[in-house]
């Protein structure tokens, strides 16, 4: 069952990602991004990471991408003022470099094998919560500071008159 679902959602994720980077209109790109993110959430479920899958949907689809869409609508760049993107040697090189990186990633991970330990309940809410509030408590708390800083920063930066 897993290979089939993996292939399906993997294809959706990759397809959505391709759409994100190819759309001229940012709004289309944002919607494609949602598609890709949902597919990734599904992949998380496949790996029994239910908590993360939920977070993925809530935070990404529900918050981040909505934020993107808000901004797109807020600044509302007219069609004719969108950057003109022509294929240049430089951009081709960029694509080639990224492709190389992809190939290298594939080469590196092709023979990766996990130890034969039983798949425990590592992705459940309980397991994650336990780890988060014991071993990684400090990191978790720091995260909150990070978010606070981001909130303050975003507010200040977006204000009209500083």
């Amino acid at each position: 069952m897993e290979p089939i679902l993996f292939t399906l959602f993997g294809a959706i994720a990759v397809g959505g990602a391709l759409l994100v980077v190819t759309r001229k209109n940012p709004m289309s790109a944002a919607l494609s991004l949602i598609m890709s993110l949902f597919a990734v959430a599904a992949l998380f479920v496949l790996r029994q990471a239910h908590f993360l899958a939920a977070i993925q949907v809530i935070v990404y689809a529900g918050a981040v991408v909505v934020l993107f869409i808000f901004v797109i609508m807020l600044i509302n760049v007219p069609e004719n003022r969108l950057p003109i993107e022509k294929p240049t040697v430089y951009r081709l090189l960029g694509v080639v470099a990224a492709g190389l990186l992809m190939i290298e990633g594939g080469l590196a991970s092709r023979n990766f094998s996990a130890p034969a330990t039983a798949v425990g309940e590592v992705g459940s809410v309980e397991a994650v919560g336990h780890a988060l509030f014991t071993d990684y408590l400090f990191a978790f708390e720091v995260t909150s500071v990070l978010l606070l800083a981001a909130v303050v920063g975003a507010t200040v930066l977006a204000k009209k008159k500083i």
Partner: protein
Amino acid sequence: MMGPSAYLILSGILFAIGAIGVVARKNALIILMSVELMLNGVNVAFVAVGSYMGDPTGGIFAFMVMTVAAAEAAVGLSILIAIYRLKETIDITELSVLKW
């Protein structure tokens, strides 16, 4: 039962596509989205390896990455707004005041 390699390769593909977006596009909004894509690709790898190893650390890391992604998106977009107000453009090639 499939091995972690497939997930890792998928993660690589997602990361690479995001990288293409970052390098090849001029639209700042799209670039920010591409960054999200790259982070997602990494998350896939974290979660997959974490679950195969039976170690919650992978999940925790993915969680942290999401936090960072959210923060980054918020700050990045607000900077974008500020720039747009100032320069009336979201073309990053026009934003080269810091050159040399």
